[in-house]
């Protein structure tokens, strides 16, 4: 600051003059020692020439000066001063510079706005809407007159319902059943102006609209659809309904998507639903068993038939011999392995100790035929 002032001649002259009249006539005044006649700082102390640096420090010793007794006195003196030597053309008190600097800073800070790439600025001048700032640097009227509300439009926000409490979010379905549904809604701002001005609590509104739309949609589908196949359709319908409602409000919001993250029967009846899937498994395994049996039985039939046909083909060539051969062979195989008794006379059979035959002589098969005879 000091450097700047020192280098620019006109201002320096002005300052010199201003300090001149403030300090020279005001010896012992409340502001300083008033030592310097020419106003080049507090010259008497031989300190730096800059009044900004030296002024305040030199105030104390000056304040001790006896020249002023009261505010009245000061006022009178001031009046005299203004009456006598009013500085024409440029002499200003330094607080005015402060004020100007403050004003410049104020204007700089409140009228230049940096808008990020994903933001828009809603500009109001004296309260009424005058435009939307695009990304980049934008200018507006300074603070009390112009106002810029920066709104992030690209950022896609997510609302989750239920809000993370872990509680069940029970919803009635069209067939009067209850499901536990969790979902999220993604949205962003399409029209920052409407978003800023139309609705008192936009986010809360979107949440409520989401909840109401979801319940309205689910109340029209069946439980099975809501749990299974109909989910995609529900998501789509909710998105549409929400967009419709929000457009009616003129909310300036676009719904990017609705995602059902969880759609299950309530915990209280979950067991019964598991039973259904168990029953499905059971039915499937019954069917599998039956199919296995079917394969087995048909294969066996085919095998048996093929065996018969082979035999029959041979049998037809020599029926009588084959028949006897098969008969003897079979009987041989049978009689080799069972206890055999041969009885001659009719009427003997009842006297045979049948149970004992088997039990008492299991190890003497060959002998049985002869004695009985």
């Amino acid at each position, binding site marked *: 600051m000091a450097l700047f002032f020192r280098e620019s001649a006109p201002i320096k002259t002005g300052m010199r003059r201003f300090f001149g009249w403030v300090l020279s006539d005001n010896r012992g005044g409340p502001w300083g020692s008033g030592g310097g006649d020419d106003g080049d700082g507090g010259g008497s102390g031989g300190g730096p020439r800059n009044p900004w640096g030296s002024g305040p420090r030199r105030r104390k010793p000056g304040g001790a000066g006896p020249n002023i007794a009261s505010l009245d006195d000061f006022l009178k003196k001031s009046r005299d001063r203004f009456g006598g030597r009013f500085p024409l053309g440029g002499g200003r008190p330094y607080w005015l510079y402060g004020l100007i600097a403050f004003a410049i800073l104020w204007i700089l800070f409140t009228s230049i706005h940096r808008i990020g790439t994903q933001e828009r600025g809603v500009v109001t001048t004296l309260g009424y809407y005058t435009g939307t700032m695009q990304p980049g640097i934008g200018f507006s009227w300074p603070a009390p007159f112009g106002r810029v509300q920066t709104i992030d439009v690209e950022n896609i926000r997510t609302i989750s319902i239920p809000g993370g409490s872990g509680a069940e979010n029970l919803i009635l379905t069209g067939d*009067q059943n209850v499901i536990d549904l969790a979902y999220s809604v993604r949205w962003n701002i399409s029209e920052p102006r409407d978003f800023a001005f139309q609705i008192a609590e936009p986010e809360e509104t979107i949440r409520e609209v989401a909840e109401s739309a979801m319940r309205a949609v689910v109340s029209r589908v069946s439980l099975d659809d809501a749990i299974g196949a109909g989910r995609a359709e529900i998501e789509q319908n909710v998105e549409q309904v929400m967009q419709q409602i929000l457009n009616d409000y003129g909310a300036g919001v676009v719904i990017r998507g609705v995602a059902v993250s969880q759609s299950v029967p309530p915990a209280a009846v979950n067991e019964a639903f598991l039973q259904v899937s168990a029953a499905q498994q059971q039915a499937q395994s019954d069917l599998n068993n039956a199919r296995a049996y*079917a394969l087995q*039985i048909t294969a066996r039939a085919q095998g048996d038939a093929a065996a018969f046909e082979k035999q029959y083909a041979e049998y037809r060539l020599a029926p009588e011999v084959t028949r006897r051969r098969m008969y003897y062979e079979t009987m041989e195989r049978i009689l080799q392995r069972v206890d055999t008794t041969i*009885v001659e006379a009719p009427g003997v059979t009842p006297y045979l100790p049948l149970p004992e035959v*088997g039990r008492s002589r299991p190890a003497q098969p060959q002998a049985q035929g002869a004695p009985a005879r």
Partner: protein
Amino acid sequence: MSRFARNPIAIAFAAILALILVGMTFAIVPETQQALIVRFGEPQRIINRYQANETFGDTGAGLAARIPFVEQIVWIDKRIQSIEMENQQVLSTDQLRLQVDAFARYRIVDPLQMYRAARTEENLSAQLRPILGSALRNELGRRPFAALLSPERGQMMDNIQNALNRVARQYGALVVDVRIKRADLPDGTPLDSAYQRMRTAREQEARSIQAQGLKQAQIVRAEADAEATATYARAFNQDPDFYDFYRAMQSYEASFVSAGTAENPRGRTNIILSPENDYLRQFRGRARAGQ
């Protein structure tokens, strides 16, 4: 006078005074607010009153002037606001209880009327809330429970909105939308019995699936049996007589030869043959005579 004008302190005072005066005279009416100018409690004029289909930037928002000390500004929100009705129990015509949350969205379209009837916005929403509740109860109480879960729902909402609007209009408000947020079965018996119904429905489904599975399995088996029978018949029918013999041989072997144990490999079958048996024809030595 000129002396006064030259006094910096006086100028400062005057400037501050002027600023205060300007501040009291002019007010910035934003897009989101309607301003009702009231003179000693008597409404004078409305600035930035809501109009349908207006575009922002072309509304009444902007600088508003008033007579300081005499006129006051009552700020009234221009945006859509909401009232929520907390969980109410509603009884439908079929005596089913339902726990209902609803909300209504409204906008103050006539600030003057609203100021006269309700004074403040809080008052307005406090007045509307019970009316929303009663409109909802009346409408839902006239219909069966099932209607709430049907496309009729939209019609019901319209009716509630109309009923609410009739009252809201007296307060200078316009109801934009009424919606049921949640409609649940109350905890306790109603919810439990709904659960019970769901449970039994599932059990029914489970059983029917099981029965269907068994039925399918049986059909598959029967079809296989039939096919096997057909296969057998096709083969055996070539010579029923030979089949009789062939099968008899297999059958004898299968029936009489039981699997023996380790110490008794012969099994437990006893066969008592008569000498007349055909097998013993040669044994008797009468074969030639017999033939």
